[in-house]
């Protein structure tokens, strides 16, 4: 049995300890907002927060995270969202960032983490923080604009 603290709840699950967090989240907990894109920490679609820091769930064995507070997109932009989570979602919506949308949970998770530690990121900060998140629809220009927009919303 593996114990998890996820989205403010404690869960006990009967899974192999080597199972990547991604598949526990998606297949066991049915939190499907976190996506599978590459499985090898190359695309960021599976980004979740571990004690507030962005990590790639596809390369995080479940046995490594028993002591951490895990948060997924459902929580981070949901009703208990932080002000950064709310600002990022509002900015994403205002600018119609999404196309196919498949990468966007991961993008928003990385963006929230960035804005939590850096209130006013420069383009360069954004490139550094977001370079691990691939968007095959290439919505990057709007992602950048939305992060600046979210930063402005946080100032206000």
């Amino acid at each position, binding site marked *: 049995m593996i114990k998890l603290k996820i989205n403010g709840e404690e869960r006990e699950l009967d899974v192999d300890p080597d199972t990547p967090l991604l598949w526990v989240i*998606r297949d066991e907990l049915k939190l499907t907002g976190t996506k599978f894109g590459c499985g090898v920490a*190359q695309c960021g679609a599976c980004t979740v927060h571990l004690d507030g820091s962005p990590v790639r769930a596809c390369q995080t064995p479940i046995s490594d995270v028993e002591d951490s507070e895990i948060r997924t997109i459902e929580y981070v*932009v949901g009703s208990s969202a932080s002000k950064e989570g709310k600002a990022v*979602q509002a900015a994403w919506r205002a600018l119609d960032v999404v196309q*196919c949308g498949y990468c966007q949970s991961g993008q928003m998770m990385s963006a929230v983490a960035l804005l939590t530690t850096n209130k006013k990121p420069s383009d360069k900060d954004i490139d550094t923080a977001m370079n691990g998140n691939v968007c095959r629809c*290439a919505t990057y220009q709007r992602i950048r604009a939305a992060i600046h927009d979210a930063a402005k919303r946080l100032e206000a």
Partner: protein
Amino acid sequence: MTYQQKIKDGETLDLSRRSFLAIAGGAGVGLMIGLKVDPAAAANTAQGAIEFNPFVKVSPDGAVTVIVKHLDKGQGVATGLATIVAEEMDADWATIRTEFAPANPNLYANLAFKAQGTGGSTSIANSWDQYRTAAVTARAALVNAAAEAWKVPAGEITVVKGVISHPSGKKGSFGEFAEKAGASKTPPAVSPQTPPFKNPTKYVLIGKEGLHRVDNDSKTDGTAIYTQDLHVPGMLVAVVAHPPKFGAKPKSFDDAEAKKVKGVEQVVQIPTGVAVLAKNTWAAIKGRNALKVEWDDGAAEGRGSDALMAACKDAVSKPGVATATNTGDAEGALRGAAKVIEADYAFPYLAHAAMEPMNAIAEVKDGAVKITTGAQFQSIDLFVASKVAGVPMDKVTIDTVWAGGSFGRRAVPTSDYIAEALTIAKGIDGKAPVKLVWTREDDMKGGYYRPMYAHKVKAAIGADGMPVAWHHRIAGQSIMTGTAMEPLLVKDGVDDTSVEGASNLAYSVPNLKVELTTIKAGVPVLWWRSVGHTHTAHAVETMIDELAFAAGKDPVEYRLALLKDKPRHAGVLKLAAEKAGWKAGEKLEKGRGRGVAVHESFNSFVAQVVDVTIKDDGQVKVDRVVAAVDCGLVVNPDVVRAQVEGGVGFGLGAALRNAVTLKDGVVQEGNFDKYKPLRISDMPHVEVHIVPSQEKPTGIGEPGVPPIAPALANAIFAATGKRVRDLPIGDQKFTSV
């Protein structure tokens, strides 16, 4: 290659045109598949919504649901169709919902294909009259119902934002009259009784800013559902070991280790590999990785990409097997010309690499089949599913969900991933629904690439610097040969998708010859966002640039002089040049360059001006792209801008560094570490300007892609004096001049 798919050992499913048409009911109906129409099943009516016609439902609470017959894989067609309906119904945008149509080609055919499917940037164009008709007839039914109830003339009634009102003060919502109005079902075909469409000057939604995408909310809170996210009760997840070489098949396998993986339930051999079925995805992946499979390579493609490119290069060094265009006497004019420029081009295989790897859910039960996936070519998928399952087509249901990208990959003449899911479901005798999951590696190595091509162009200019002859040879695999589309798109040995964009050269050149040699290879190929234009635009738009320089003329002015009878090409070219601050003869400071390209594809016109910087390490950085587009009347300007921004990024990533390569028949790239996608740090600033137009709307999903590579190459030339004719640019280092 021939598109045949093994369904069982020794039994081949013939997916050729003949068998397709036999099922479809003969060539006379084009690609239309004759299905029995069950009105009740035509649209799964939810929450008491009243169906007005196959495209519009109104619920008692006033919500209008638009049935979207096209797959939305990010291009925004759900938003586009919803906008058209809301506009013509005078509905309240806030109450608009969308739902994907079921697979039913009788109701939901793409009128451009006469088959249900999405592609060729046709969605808005083919739906324009159809959805407007559906909306105005639904609106008229509501107005008539109100007129009857209020005993007033219908002509005195007005509708604003879903509220029906009469000058007497009577008011009602769509919802109040839905039931009564919906009873008088009207077929949405234009007839003399069809109420007139709205005058475009009265539009409040079409062409307007500020409308948000219909999928904006669900894709920003994690609730949008893709195939990958579905959990059907009792379902098993299947992950398949595929052969390393195309055309190989499993000889034998050892599943002892695979079966030890907790959660693995069953292992089945299928013609395309060996499938591991498990209770969850991770167990299926682990099980698959633990399989030991021996492959029979007897019929496999064993050549590497170098050998395949050599075959293409060899072909363009000789006269083409087929001639696509021949006006005047290009070879004769070249012989006598003052100045001839000759150039060779090479283009690699490209993977679509949609963000969501291919997947599908298949259920086989009681002689019926249900498929759930991001289905893009439902007519073909229905046909393939019925053949694979051995059931009549009216026993096949296909539910379409949001797709995490496609770029063409989900519309496959063999429905490969759907057929595989269904074959597995059949292989376990339908005992559980099967979700087939391809990993990124399965997707990248799974074939159906943009074909590899070689081009050779010889062009000549006369004493005045203007082109007198253009002789263009192209060689590569044919996308259409062997598919159901062959009769429509392959004529006299010319697959139009191999030459489109070159065979119809926009520039007026008196002597033009375009030849094609089709190469046969066992690597499955497919359309890739903008299809033939992905390579023809590069050859044409860099060559015209070479000619302009050889003539000592400005590249924009030179093009315009050759586009005198092409006002829409000229229009976007002028607009892009103006917005980019293009100045004839201007040389940017050392290390920087500006280039231009203009191209028509899918009846839309796009010009792009690219600014680059050559970095100290000799690599190229794209700073800015200014695009101008003419796609006729624009339904959603922001969606058009988004598609061009995305098209630029998609094409740029490929031009900079994407190639699928094979060594002895084995694909070398498996994930994003080797097939390196464009990342945010690579993304230039993109500006999109739209030419106002009242022409019928045309496509925008693809036309943003073709100009970017040649405009980039021309900008690199301006900065370095070096021509980029082969793609991708890769690790090449440049020196500024």
